[in-house]
């Protein structure tokens, strides 16, 4: 059973005694054997949404500060007809979701929320610690001949990372996308991934995220960002059922490719992190590799989104952190060549909406995943310092060069000051430090690798260049 927060312990006493007295809830739908997982995501404005995955036909009750209501059905169990996927048809299958996803909006100031005996993590008014990770799944991809040993915690470290990070007692978790990597079947001759679920259904989502990350799901509410692995032709169906913070509908389910042109995009929204900071969540799931023509529908969609970001970032007296999956002012390492810069599609739009600045005024920092490494980048030009925290579980990338080449900006008009980077498995922690934040890079085992302090849109790290794991 998940432990309740200490501050709520006294308030819980009566409830706990009642539960102990009768052993379990009397509501069959709320019994623990039906409620497989319970978690909390933060949506637009930081509104907390409780979610459960249940095998019971009826949604369970949720007890919030001693008031009990029945959760609402978000996505009914079911299996849509097989759609086109990123894999060949022979290596695809219909996505089966045998569990109902239920949800309930929570009051922002709720002190306690419980489903059955599972206590849900609730947002704090002034979060002090935010755990940041991305690219966490276990790669099973036939086209790559890549079959990561998902059954071996040494080779796929998400469970260790989740346990290490949960022990640091974060107040929030920020996952920057790519939760799901098990796209194709593990060949029968490979014990390292033998019997792994595959495809885009619930069993794969459970194996790639919910089970190994359970300690982190119990530790804190999550801010969820969509990665390219969650675009509609990949794990988009699970994304909308389980994680997306907007309303669920057929049009926004990724069940039919006919809706992909809309469902591969989401309007940006802001999640407050205390009174002085906000995370602006940007969906770049479908961003390609090439710069976009002005008339391209994708250009137009992202153009609208960047304008929304400008509106959100204009909030007074607020440090705005721009968060999306693909690095914009970050780097992609290439063996035997100079690193590539940021995502060309997003840069082409950002440069048009915010010429030379790329980001609108008000954006202090940018956080990304996608590249499977850690990067902390400070610019001497007036651009937001950038972090990449994509070393959460999938196979790692090669390292960025050290020393880093001179005069190699991630985008035209940007001047690199210093970069700190690593390619060991791990995660990042943001700790509140006065009016700003301190960013710490950790290995999978919790070894501190680097600490970066923030001042407005700059960071200063205590180490520079490549960090060995």
């Amino acid at each position, binding site marked *: 059973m998940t432990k309740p927060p200490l501050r709520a312990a006294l308030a819980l006493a009566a409830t706990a005694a009642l539960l102990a007295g009768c052993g379990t809830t009397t509501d069959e739908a709320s019994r623990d054997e039906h409620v497989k997982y319970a978690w909390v995501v933060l949506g637009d404005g930081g509104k907390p949404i409780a979610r459960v995955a249940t095998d019971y036909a009826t949604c369970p009750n949720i007890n919030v500060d001693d008031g009990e209501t029945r959760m609402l059905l978000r996505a009914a169990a079911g299996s849509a007809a097989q759609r086109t996927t*990123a894999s*060949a048809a022979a290596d695809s299958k219909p996505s089966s979701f045998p569990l109902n996803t239920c949800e309930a909006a929570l009051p922002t100031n709720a002190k306690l929320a419980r489903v059955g005996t599972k206590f849900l993590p609730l947002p704090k008014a002034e979060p002090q610690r935010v755990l940041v990770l991305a690219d966490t799944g276990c790669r099973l*991809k*036939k*086209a*790559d*001949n890549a*079959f990561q*040993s998902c059954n*071996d915690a040494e*080779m796929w470290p998400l469970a260790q990372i989740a346990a290490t990070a949960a022990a640091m007692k974060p107040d929030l978790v920020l996952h920057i996308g790519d939760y799901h990597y098990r796209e194709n079947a593990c*060949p029968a*001759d*490979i*014990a*390292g*991934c*033998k019997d792994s679920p595959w495809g885009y259904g619930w069993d794969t989502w459970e194996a790639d995220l919910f089970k190994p990350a359970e300690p982190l799901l119990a530790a804190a509410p999550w801010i969820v960002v969509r990665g*390219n692995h969650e675009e509609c032709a990949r794990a988009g169906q699970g994304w909308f059922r389980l994680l997306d913070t907007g309303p669920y509908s057929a049009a926004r389910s990724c069940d039919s490719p006919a809706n992909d042109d809309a469902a591969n995009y989401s309007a940006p929204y802001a999640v407050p992190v205390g009174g002085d900071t906000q995370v602006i969540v940007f969906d770049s799931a479908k961003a390609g*590799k090439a710069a976009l023509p002005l008339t391209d529908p994708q250009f137009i969609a992202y153009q609208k989104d960047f304008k929304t970001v400008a509106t959100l970032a204009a909030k007074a007296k607020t440090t705005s952190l721009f968060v999306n999956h693909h690095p914009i002012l970050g780097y*992609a*390492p*290439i*063996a*035997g*060549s*100079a690193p*590539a810069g940021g995502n060309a599609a997003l840069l082409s739009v950002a440069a048009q909406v915010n010429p030379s600045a790329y980001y609108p005024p008000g954006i202090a920092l940018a956080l990304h995943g*996608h590249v499977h490494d850690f990067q902390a980048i400070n610019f001497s030009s007036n651009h937001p310092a950038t972090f990449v925290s994509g070393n959460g579980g999938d196979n*790692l990338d*090669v*390292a*960025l*060069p*050290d*020393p880093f080449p001179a005069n190699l900006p991630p985008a035209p008009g940007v001047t690199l000051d210093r970069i700190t980077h690593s*390619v*060991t*498995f791990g995660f990042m922690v943001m700790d509140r430090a006065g009016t700003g934040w301190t960013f710490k890079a950790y290995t999978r085992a919790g070894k501190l690798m680097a600490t970066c302090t923030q001042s407005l849109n700059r960071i200063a790290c205590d180490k520079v*260049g*490549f960090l*060995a*794991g």
Partner: protein
Amino acid sequence: MASLALVAMLAVPASAQDVVARIGTTPQRAAMPGVAGPFNPSPARAALGRQAFFDARLSEPAGTSCASCHHPAKAFSGNHGSRIGVPLGSRPGLLGVRNTPSALYTAYVPPLLFYQDDDAPAPTPFGGLFADGRADDVPALVRHPLLDPNEMHNRSLDAVAAKLCGAPYADGLKREFGPKALDTTAGAIAALGKTMESFLQSREMAPFSSRYDAWVQGKATFSPQELRGLKLFKNPDKGNCASCHKFNETSSNPARSMFTDYGFDAIGVPRNRALPATRDAKYFDTGLCATASANKWPDSGQWCGYFRTPSLRNVAVRERWMHNGVFTTLRDAVAFYATRSIEPERWYRKGELFDDLPERYRGNVNAATLPYNRRKGMQPALDDDEIDAIVAFLRTLTDAPWAGRQ
């Protein structure tokens, strides 16, 4: 240097179903080839190929067979009596330009292709026979050593065909390929290529009988040092060898453990100054870029210095290591990865990094993959004991016929 992205931009559509584009004349495929094998070659053809492989009449002058360099006693590698890192050819004093690779497991090498994972910034090449990937299959391969003046030195394929007509296995070739198979040069060379392909597909040439294979099957044990070496070999923070020398010790299919991804890498090995060719300061073996140029890849220069990642099966039985045979011990080869840029003076004359490449191509050398991403002054990713452990593990990759010879 032109960006790799340029390669993708210039790709043009192709017709074959799994070919998504062509880069020059090389296909870019939608997926990497699956695991090759097992092969079931015709025993008769494999036997003919074996005869041809050992046929010393096929050189000019006679006396040098394929097996002279790909010597069975050396796990089908070796340098034909040369001690400087590259093989002697059929003529006294003339040497080939590259260290002889083992002919074992050749059948598993896919044809040259490009592949781009959706997360990768650009397509990258894989496969092809020879260290520069220039031949797609064994029938295409055989003509190269036969005609190379520094190897078997035949003046023409006609001359080779004539020798095949007079070979003791000529009747066998006619039985397999028809009575007129040797009537034309093209027919004779094709027959030779097909028999050689069958031989290279035979169990003799892919035995999968190493202690490693037995260990995977639970029929052998590793010493603590070998086990440590295995872990270091895999660990992305330490040896990280498996990032290119791919294998899967959890698979019951040994072909998933070829200890290569068939990709290309520029690792900047030191110049082998024992090679006569290097007396010419302008001589450089630049590897893949010759193939890139021949195949009309855009900006072929970006591939200068790249060589195909070899299989490490039987690596401990080699006479010399690296494409130019510069290293005389396996331990040096492993230590080079760990300390290449940290102690350049240990590996390069006057500490001049990547001195076996023209200066303009030294930027192609991979400085990104661990452990050779370290710079001078840093701690190496592997200490001496760890290097020894990896070498111990690599010795487990020797197939049974050569187990006592490493």
